[in-house]
């Protein structure tokens, strides 16, 4: 029984990382109406920056985190400006292909800069933070990941629901033209969304690399796809959906690894997604698509 709880808790921790990444997917989808498939690779860049500053140069942790967040925010905003903004009125397929192109660009840039071999990532969480409750060992990474994720989720929910910028985001998400008539700068709102999503990606990257202490050019790819799955699972466009989707996905993945098969765990995760979409095509918390009357 205690091993079950230990798998459950590490599942929640893994799911928290998926949730942080999924928030970036879902917010960008909700506001810019596009799937930013380069999002997973922004995580990888965040991981590399933290590795460079902390593991390689040996500078303090807080500096590594700040640098990773700043670089990812700039990267996210620049990607949007250069690659996606010119395609604002293009077909969704053109934007999707561009996003995949940006994803390869980021992976290959990392490959050229840091080489193909994975680097050992020094966890940003000190070992002393780990605790043991009733025979279950909980690592410091797990605790920090869950706490940080909860804080970010609460902060983001407050931001989106109660600040002027957050309300502007919701307005743009619903009706770009009407939002413009209110005086909302749509381009700036989209930039802000990419900035927030990329900052969350940086945090997720650091937490991911601390939990699984390696960083390579493809580190972000699979978690990116899983988080995208989580966002769809929870209902793409919905912030609480991304949170729940991410955590549920992490738990399913970890429990199937523990009790069914570690090779099959990814297949099980995607099978659950298929079942959910068959039963509820808009995802768990997905909004009904309003037809224009």
């Amino acid at each position, binding site marked *: 029984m205690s091993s079950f709880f230990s798998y459950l808790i590490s599942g929640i921790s893994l799911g928290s990382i998926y949730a942080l990444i999924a928030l970036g997917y879902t917010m960008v989808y909700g506001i810019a109406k596009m799937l930013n498939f380069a999002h997973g690779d922004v995580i990888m860049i965040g991981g590399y920056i933290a590795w460079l500053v902390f593991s390689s140069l040996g500078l303090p942790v807080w500096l590594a985190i700040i640098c990773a967040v700043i670089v990812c925010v700039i990267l996210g905003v620049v990607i949007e400006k250069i690659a996606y903004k010119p395609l604002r009125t293009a077909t969704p397929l053109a934007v999707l292909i561009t996003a995949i192109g940006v994803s390869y660009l980021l992976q290959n840039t990392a490959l050229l800069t840091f080489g193909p071999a994975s680097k050992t990532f020094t966890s940003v969480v000190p070992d002393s933070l780990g605790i043991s409750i009733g025979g279950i060992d909980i690592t410091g990474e797990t605790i920090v990941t869950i706490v940080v994720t909860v804080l970010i989720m609460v902060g983001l929910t407050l931001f989106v629901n109660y600040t002027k910028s957050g309300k502007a985001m*919701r307005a743009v998400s619903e009706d770009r033209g009407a939002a413009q008539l209110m005086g909302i700068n749509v381009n700036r709102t989209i930039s802000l969304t990419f900035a927030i999503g990329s900052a969350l990606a940086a945090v997720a990257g650091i937490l991911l690399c601390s939990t699984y202490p390696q960083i390579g050019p493809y580190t972000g790819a699979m978690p990116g796809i899983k988080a995208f799955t989580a966002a769809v699972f929870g209902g793409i466009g919905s912030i609480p959906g991304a949170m729940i989707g991410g955590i549920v996905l992490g738990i399913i993945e970890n429990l199937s690894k523990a009790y069914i098969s570690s090779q099959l765990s990814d297949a099980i995760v995607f099978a659950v997604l298929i079942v959910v979409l068959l039963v509820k095509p808009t995802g768990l918390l997905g909004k009904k698509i309003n037809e224009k009357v």
Partner: protein
Amino acid sequence: MLKVDNIQVYYGMINAIKGVSFEVNEGEVIALIGANGAGKTTILHTITGLVAPKSGHVYFEDKDLTKIPPHKIVYLGMAHVPEGRRVFQQLTVLENLKLGAFSIKDNAKIEENLKYVYAHFPRLEERKNQVAGTLSGGEQQMLAMGRALMSNPKIILMDEPSMGLSPLLVNEIFKIIGEVSKDGTTVLLVEQNAKKALSIADRAYVLETGNIVMEGKASELLNDPRIKAAYLGE
């Protein structure tokens, strides 16, 4: 106050507006009437920058709106109640109204505008915490108008405010348009309901397939045999 100067608008190859010019003076209620597809909505969209004209200009108090980013236009004192209301369905009535005042920084001014809107639309105050998507069509029209008034506009552009509403509600909406005008806001009204529009307007322009074909005092147009035959069903 507002001068539309020879605008041409294309949707792809289709020439939707073929050189339209007209003027709105301060304090007036101007009606733009015409059948479905005549280009009425396109003209309003061109004025507030949702559509860019191929040629021509739109001057508002001597500023060329075609050179101003669309989201800055409301800051100049122009509000637009779009066709089909386009209220933010998932936001509450109050959130919608507050977004209408997005261009205003002063909180006291926002509260004052809110009082003004509630005075004209008591129904909105009763439902302020309700999500806009759950309102009836008439209430959504009131919300769209209230939201526009929240920005304290000098001129308000209204696109088909009567669309899809019962005759009773249409009367109520037009009564409020009259009150808004009396309070000093200039009104540019686009309507298919020509009778209603002409009964409230000072002057009117008649639009047919992208051209203005008639213009004049609303009272005279109401009695014009051609208008009667084509738009008033008499």
